[in-house]
């Protein structure tokens, strides 16, 4: 994928949360707690699915459960890097 066209992952995440749960994008920072953003286990699954879909990657099942936005983005970056994108 052309990295110039690739939307910043943080933006992907904040747009998804805004659309799904009407969360203010200003609250979606790397330090933000997923729990405080009301990201429960089901919404987390949807987020992982969204990233897999958009980036054409497969996030392994045995990842540690991310606690912050930064944790989640870190997982996505690691998987993306691993695929050589």
């Amino acid at each position: 994928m052309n990295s110039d066209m690739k939307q910043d992952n943080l933006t992907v995440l904040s747009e998804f949360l805004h659309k799904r749960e009407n969360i203010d994008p200003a609250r979606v920072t790397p330090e933000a707690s997923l729990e405080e953003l009301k990201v429960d286990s089901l919404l987390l699954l949807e987020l992982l699915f969204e990233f897999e879909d958009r980036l054409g990657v497969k996030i392994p099942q045995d990842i540690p459960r991310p606690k912050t936005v930064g944790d989640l983005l870190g997982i996505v970056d690691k998987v993306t890097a691993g695929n050589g994108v």
Partner: protein
Amino acid sequence: MASARRVAVTGLGLVNPFGGDLSDFFCRMLRGESAIRLYTREDSVTRPLSVPAVRCANFDADAALGRSLAYTMDRYSQLGTTAALSAWSDAGLPRTKDAPRNDWGVSWGTALGGTLTFESGYIELLRNGRERVPPLSVVLGMSNAAASHISIQLGLGASSATYSVACASSAVAIGEVLQKIRSGEATLMVVGGSEAPLSYGVVRAWEAMRILALGDEASAARACRPFNSDRQGLVLGEGAGAMILEDWDHAVRRGARIYAEFAGCGSTSDHDHLVRPNVDGQMRAMRMAIQDGGMTPDDVDYVNAHGTATREGDPIEIAAIRGVFGSRSADLAVSATKSMHGHMLGATGVIEAIITVMSLASQEAPPTAYLDDLDRECAGVRHITGGPLRGALRAALSNSFAFGGSNTVLAFRAVH
């Protein structure tokens, strides 16, 4: 069978296929107005579909439930939860999570559950070659989803069960609660059913049984003609309904409006054939409901028939009614309201129970719409035709006779 506790119907709610509220729905039923329209569907995936059906075309799930909640639901749950919340409000109950209600529960019926979710999932996997389906697929598709959402939204801590008994699903869900309230196990139950069955696969499956009434734009409204000589079969529909059933004394203490008494229930099995109904099984269910309600056949003034308008089913039901009511049959008012609201499968039982309850409350019963040429084999009862029957309605039965031979009859008594 006499019991210490009586059961009151204190709230009613439904998704009106005409788009209005509960009162609007019942008025149209009394007038003999049909909600059946030609349903056509054409897209890149499926061959064109064209069949008379009942749809809740005006239903806006996002508006009714909020987008965030609606997103976690298949349409069958969206319809069901909306109906349940409407019945709750109709019963004058507050939306508060402060008081845990551990003896208030849910009893729900659905034949097919989240079948639309399954269909779109299969299309993704089998036609579009995808490897995965969206992660909410299980919780959308599972057949207990609606009951779960209702329990969560209303903070209900007693049993939340879902019954799957084909065309009798919500009637069973209603009936099973009788003993819970009579025994004191439950004080209040949200009961009902919902169905969103108009997927491509489900419609084609029903077509293959050659019992779906055909029609075009002009004739669709009158496609379902129970008891008519030229009846062609049934019409599928989507919909949802709910009732609040409550311990009588509890209802009186809180000043609730009581629509009618839920007096009795009879459930039997034909143990005969997968689709052909059985007179004996139906008679036993009606007799059981009457007796359980502490009544005799002479006390019943109206029967809301199962009346799907199939060639085979209608005469068998009339024969069963005549077997139970004997010489009174000629005076016994009967109507088949599927002629107007279609067959909503798992949701039909509660929709018809709501109509039956409102008939007793208003002392007016709806007609069988378009009944202008009575089949001789369906004669022998007092068919309500044209407009409403006004008169002294002391008690009524609502019949649900399902594929597989499960029969459930609900008995209601008017209150004054």
